[in-house]
């Protein structure tokens, strides 16, 4: 088909650029980083163009038996394609957002380019252990990014980030070793069709859950996220929210669900309970934050809970909604962090109270901030609406209670986002220095306009993004059909509703 190893090339470009950035001076490093990320973005466009919708499930496959025990095996399906596109799209914007970094620029750019390689690697790896290496290796550059270029409390945040995620991942490694031993292969597509014994599945599922739940992050292991976000530089937050969090969701959709369908079904109530708590609790926490970045960080946790709810809905709507929420959140949360970064660069504070009335002196900024706020709330016409609607529609078929509680997240989301927006952009100009801030510069416009365009595109015509994933999600849905729990929705016409049946109970029953 397309014999050229484009995925390897996409991995190689940022890697080579990263090494180059280490040895050159600051200005050249910026140029190299921007050039490399733009080049990778262009390669990403080629990749999307060449991706055959409705073609074979796995495309652009490469396989080189370079190592003992695992191999250099790459390949993507529609789900991975979309997440790779998200990564390569956000990267040049991150580099642009790093103009305010003046400390150790070469190393900074190198760390970001390395992150790009590893993120693409995670989504493109088709070998279990190759995936693990990419997944885990991201810890090192992220640790350095938070620790070196972060804010005041950066040391604590970097430790927390590193050790939390490491503990989650090593348990997953043991599970992977067991799986490779049991199935006799490390090939991910093969493993996705392999039926593990149900008793073993439960242990394996828990081990993978330990890793993905931390990365996701799910309540109650989310506490590293607000710390890491607040302390990371703007671009670090964008990458963290935009792509790193998606690794957890990707892990669920690629590993947990297809490899352990029965275990997934039996643990679905656990996921639902954790997600419901997360939606309500973190939304309420977001409501009382004084720090803009912390507020958006908590809102990320709430949005990710919608993702997990959709994932474990076991139907096409839920899964499609999950993917769109992930893509949309990647763009919107990334953009919101950029918006915070824009005013942080000017005033060097993230205190909400220090701002106010920015609509007067920064009208363009107010416009874009409004758009992303609305997208975060899930206003129709923006990407957030499509994803959240599909996810909730999916879960409604399984459990109306979970759907009900999760939907409050949207209302609470509107509350904290609009409250944030009102305090920052509307009202009186309380501080002279905030009132004197200039509007968006050309560079900043270059950062937010593309994201705004894609957010609207995804909101108005989501089909472009859903089409490549459709057959993969259908395949996943077919794989899950054997374990699908019965929903509590009574769609049979003419029969009265059974009394006294509790939703969780029904889900549990369906699982066994």
């Amino acid at each position, binding site marked *: 088909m397309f014999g050229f190893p484009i995925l390897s090339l996409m991995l190689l470009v940022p890697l080579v650029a990263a090494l180059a950035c280490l040895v050159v001076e600051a200005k050249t490093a910026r140029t190299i980083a921007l050039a490399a990320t733009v080049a990778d973005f262009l390669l990403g466009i080629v990749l999307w163009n060449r991706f055959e919708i409705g073609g074979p499930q796995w495309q652009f496959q490469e396989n080189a038996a370079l190592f003992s025990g695992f191999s250099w095996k790459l390949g993507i399906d529609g789900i991975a394609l979309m997440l790779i596109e998200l990564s390569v799209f956000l990267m040049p914007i991150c580099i642009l957002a790093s103009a305010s970094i003046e400390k150790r620029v070469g190393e900074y750019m190198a760390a970001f380019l390395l992150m790009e390689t590893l993120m693409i690697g995670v989504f493109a790896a088709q070998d279990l252990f190759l995936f693990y290496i990419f997944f885990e290796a991201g810890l090192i550059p992220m640790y350095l990014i938070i620790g070196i270029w972060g804010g005041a409390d950066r040391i604590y945040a970097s430790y927390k980030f590193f050790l939390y995620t490491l503990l989650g991942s090593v348990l997953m490694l*043991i599970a992977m*070793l*067991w799986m490779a031993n049991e199935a006799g292969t490390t090939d991910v597509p093969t493993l996705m069709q392999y039926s593990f014994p149900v008793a073993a599945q439960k242990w394996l599922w828990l081990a993978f859950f330990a890793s993905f739940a931390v990365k996701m992050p799910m309540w109650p292991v989310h506490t590293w996220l607000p710390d890491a976000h607040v302390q990371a530089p703007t671009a670090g937050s964008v990458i963290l929210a935009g792509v790193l969090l998606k690794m957890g969701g990707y892990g669920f959709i690629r590993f947990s669900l297809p490899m352990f369908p029965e275990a997934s079904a039996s643990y679905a109530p656990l996921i639902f309970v954790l997600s419901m708590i997360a939606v309500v609790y973190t939304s309420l926490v977001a409501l009382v934050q004084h720090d803009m970045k912390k507020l958006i960080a908590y809102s990320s946790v709430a949005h990710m809970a919608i993702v997990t709810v959709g994932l474990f809905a076991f139907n096409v709507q839920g899964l499609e909604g999950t993917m769109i929420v992930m893509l949309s959140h990647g763009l919107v949360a990334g953009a919101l962090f950029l918006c915070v970064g824009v005013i942080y660069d000017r005033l060097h504070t993230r205190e909400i109270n220090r701002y106010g009335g920015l609509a007067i002196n920064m009208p363009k900024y107010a416009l874009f901030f409004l758009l992303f706020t609305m997208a975060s709330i899930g206003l129709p016409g923006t990407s957030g609406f499509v994803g959240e609607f599909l996810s909730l529609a999916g879960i409604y078929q399984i459990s109306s209670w979970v759907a009900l509680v999760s939907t409050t997240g949207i209302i609470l989301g509107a509350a904290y986002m609009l409250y944030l927006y009102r305090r920052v952009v509307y009202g009186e100009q309380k501080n002279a220095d905030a009132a004197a801030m200039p509007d968006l510069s050309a560079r900043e416009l270059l950062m937010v306009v593309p994201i705004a365009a894609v957010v609207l595109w995804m909101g108005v015509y989501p089909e472009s993004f859903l089409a490549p994933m459709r057959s993969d999600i259908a395949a996943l849905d077919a794989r899950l059909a054997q374990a699908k729990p019965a929903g509590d929705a009574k769609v049979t016409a003419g029969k009265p509703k059974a009394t006294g049946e509790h939703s969780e109970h029904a889900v549990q029953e369906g699982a066994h």
Partner: protein
Amino acid sequence: MDLTHSLRLVAPEELLSVVGLALLLVSAWAGGARAARAVTWIAVAVLAACAVLVVPALSGVAPADASAFGGLYAADAFSAYAKVLIYVAAGASLLVAPAFFEKAGAMRAEYPILVLFAALGMGIMVSAQNLMTLYIGLELNSLAAYVLAAFLKTDERSAEAGLKYFVLGALASGILLFGMSLTYGFTGTTSYAGIAAALQGGMAKGALFGLTFVLAGLAFKASAVPFHMWTPDVYEGAPTPVTAFFASAPKVAALGLTMRVALEAFAPQAAAWQQIVTFAAIASIVVGALGAIGQGNIKRLLAYSSINNVGFVLIGLATATPQGASAMLVYLAIYVAMTVGGFVAVLMLKDADGNQVEQIADIAGLSHTRPLIAAGLAMVMFSLAGIPPLFGFWGKFVVFQAAVQAGMVPLAALGIAASVIGAFYYLKVVKVMYFDDAAGKVTGASDMTHSVLLAASALFISPLGYLLTRCLGSIAQTAAAVLFHAA
């Protein structure tokens, strides 16, 4: 005919002993730092030659052809693998020495000569097929090591380290001998094959005691918990090149020896020693990790790290499978590279007067002043913590893979979860170097050989190391298979 065959098999040992004795004479007549330098280079050349001599055996030798002196000694793939590591590690600790000892005013030819004799002893340890051969090799290595630890005659810490090492080492040798005598008493032989034959079908209580004491003695040499107490003090007190040596080559020898004793001599009673080894493995990982957290001296930290690493290697032994043994060998190869790299980086930390900087607090902000040393040390730290894509991950990977394949999932899960504790103090070193403000202490110029060695080990533990996994894996597999021939 038989004797000539035997003599040919022990060629590396002959070369080492003859050259060692000759150099001893040379140093007796021609003292001074210049001669010492020359002796060092000759010693390195001899170690390289020995390594070349054993390389052909790596691809496997028929058991009959490998056996020398009527079954006392074996020059097989396993011993060849261990010897290559030992010679490389010994050579590296020779190369780093001149710069250090010249500054300390203690550049003497005895250092390379003692290292040669220690290497000779270690070669005998990993080739031993009989408890007596084992003991001769072990003592030859230990006696050389005691003197090496006390090599800086005028430094109190060094003298203390030597004395401590000697007293505790002698005790451990006594325990080992006691165990050997019990084993001999209850099996009627000292040869590994004979012991294995005698233990076929059942083991007397006395032999179990013998096994326990033998393992205790060996655990001391390998510094596995609960016989690790001497390690931090000796590592801190001994001159840094000697510490680099202690942390690398003798570990390989002691663990190689333990593998031979456990998997050859006591193979029929694997269940008896597996629980001892499992306990030692987990205890070493946990104690090594927890003990390191409060350390302020980087050499003490690396001492605890070596205890921690021994625990991971022992997990491979606890499986008692060929995969486990081969995983141990792979781990040891990577461990030697990481250790050499780590200690070379420590040696490069010098203040303006050229004195060694050993306190972790003093290397704050190293990435500002000496970015290359900082990068090298950071790679070693992440690699020791087992974070991919660095090569240290692969060592842990193969060991835990072997454990999972042997059905020991709880052991693997426990071990790997404990490794997260270890990650904490490795991160601390990186944090001090990269996140803290520069202390400006480390400003001294580095020696050329140090830089080259650090670059070489950094290259080995970089992701490029994974390209070696196929070749390393197959060599280790051949070597490990030797241990399972007899059984």
